[in-house]
């Protein structure tokens, strides 16, 4: 079927038609398509290439160095990573980072959901809260880190990864979470919530039975943000974690001291954890959508 035979529905202009119309040519693709496709391919290669290199290099044997060519194949550097004193307390750092990320994620999800509800309409002073949030997001991490550190000194409390570091990380993950919540909630039709009120639901019932189930995929997305931003946070944790390192702090000290593929092995292990988290989150979003789709015919 050629383009001329297609019935043209008024008002329904597909993206493909516009892309086609921008420069109709014999091949159907303007030259810019090929140019930009090349740019895109190079971008993705540059994005993933280096990461894949260090994953490969982490599987060298004991002769392994920091650069190609690959010397042998073994799990030597993974064992080295978790058993050597030289590389520091990697296991403990892992443990703390994951626990810290779980605490931060939980608080981020709850607080940004509630704050998102508030921001759906204007209230007195909402701009102040908004700009406070933007400020907290863009403030240099180390500046806040020093501030929290000094504040803890002033009050006379020793900083710990599960107290001051949690707060310092929240000053970064929460604004992010609330901004993602904005995007999630902008797709929520208030009529659904009002229908619940009309049927006699209390405020809490409407939130629990209507708002949360509808926004569930978005809430999972906020959790994904919270976890990764915390798990990878460096500057704000630096002066607030106290005497025990989190994983990014451990990696930082390793980049300065360790010059063996152990560093790459650590990179491989933390990336695996990241990918597991991404898979769990995307999987649960997909599951929620699937259950929702299968429930529709029942009504």
């Amino acid at each position, binding site marked *: 079927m050629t383009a001329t035979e297609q019935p043209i529905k008024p008002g329904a202009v*597909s*993206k*493909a038609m516009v*892309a086609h*119309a*921008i*420069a109709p040519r014999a091949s159907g693709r303007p030259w*810019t398509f090929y140019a*930009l496709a090349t*740019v*895109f391919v190079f*971008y993705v290669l540059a994005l993933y290439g*280096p*990461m894949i*290199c*260090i994953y490969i290099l982490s599987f060298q044997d004991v002769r392994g160095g920091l*650069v190609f060519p690959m010397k042998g194949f073994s799990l030597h550097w993974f064992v080295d990573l978790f058993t050597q004193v030289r590389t520091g307390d990697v296991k403990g750092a892992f443990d703390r980072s994951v626990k810290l990320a779980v605490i931060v994620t939980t*608080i981020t999800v*709850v*607080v940004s959901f*509630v*704050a998102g*509800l508030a*921001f759906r309409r204007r*209230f*007195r*002073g909402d701009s102040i*809260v908004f700009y406070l*949030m933007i400020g*907290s997001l*863009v*403030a*240099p991490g*180390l*500046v*806040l880190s*020093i*501030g929290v550190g*000094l*504040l803890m000194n002033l009050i006379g409390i020793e900083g710990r990864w599960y107290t001051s570091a949690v707060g*310092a990380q*929240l000053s970064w993950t*929460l604004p992010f979470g609330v*901004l993602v919540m*904005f*995007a999630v909630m902008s797709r929520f039709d208030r009529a659904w919530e009002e229908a619940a009120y009309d049927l006699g639901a209390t405020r809490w019932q409407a939130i629990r039975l209507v708002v949360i189930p509808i926004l569930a995929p978005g809430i999972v997305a906020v959790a994904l943000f919270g976890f*990764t931003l915390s798990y990878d946070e*460096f*500057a704000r944790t630096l002066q607030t974690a106290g005497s025990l390192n989190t994983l*990014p702090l451990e*990696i930082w000290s390793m*980049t300065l001291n360790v010059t063996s593929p152990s560093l*790459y092995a*650590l*990179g491989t292990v*933390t990336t695996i954890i*990241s*990918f597991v*988290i*991404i898979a769990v989150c995307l999987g649960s979003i997909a599951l929620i959508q699937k259950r929702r789709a299968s429930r529709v015919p029942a009504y």
Partner: protein
Amino acid sequence: MAAREGVFGWVYISPLMLVLVPFFVAPLLVVIAASFLQSDGFGGIIVNPTLQNYVDIFSSGLTFNLYLETVKFTILTWLFALIIGFWVAYFLVFHVRSPLLAIGLFLLCTVPFWTSNIIRMISWIPLLGKEGLINMSLIRLGIVHEPLEFLLFSSFSVVVAYVHQLTIFMIVPIFNAMARIDKRVVEAALDAGASRFEIMWLIVLPLSKNGIALGSIFVVSIVMGDFFVIKVMSGGGSASVVGALYEDVGVLQYPSAAASAVVLTIVVTMLITAILRTVDVRKELTR
């Protein structure tokens, strides 16, 4: 009713404020206060109001050089992230015909964002190093005879690492802005005889402006506040504002560190305000 809603607004917002006040507002105030005090030289602070910390900062030629260096990296990173981010987003929105494929390719770009930034930075070392993949390939191909020294531990590798990490912050908001452009507007422009350049200049670019501004805020604030990438990737060859600040902390000179922190925060705030003037970010985010 309006008053009641206002009260509910604050009830809902109070948990957020319970984090922002002690962990953003209070630390900032403490830093500002500390910047006007003296150090006892052993990590303690003597309550003795002085402007000496600021006099030191502004009378030192080093300060100017540090800012020059940091601003140089900020501008370079911003420029490359913008160019790459804009064209990648444009490609995904206007050139990929299947919406599902566009979303899939978009996700492909975002996955690395969820992995460790530090590891992604380190991963350039086996590529750019003196015996790295790029140098070895160039020598084998006979293009160069000596390994190129400028590839790693140089300004070049700093910019590469920044662009690698931060382009995603440009792609996401620009992609969002472009995806919202009504395709009928483009269609109408075509019907009216617009050239492709005119469509880009008069429709796509103005309607992507908010996304560009939002991305710029992220890129500028992150690069200005960074000392980690610059320290590792320049091999100690380049200094940054926050790097110098961290050295002050290392030798327990909290008041002078606090003073440079205040100056930096003012500079970053001015930059962000300048960007915010061009768009209504809140409208962009909440609509």
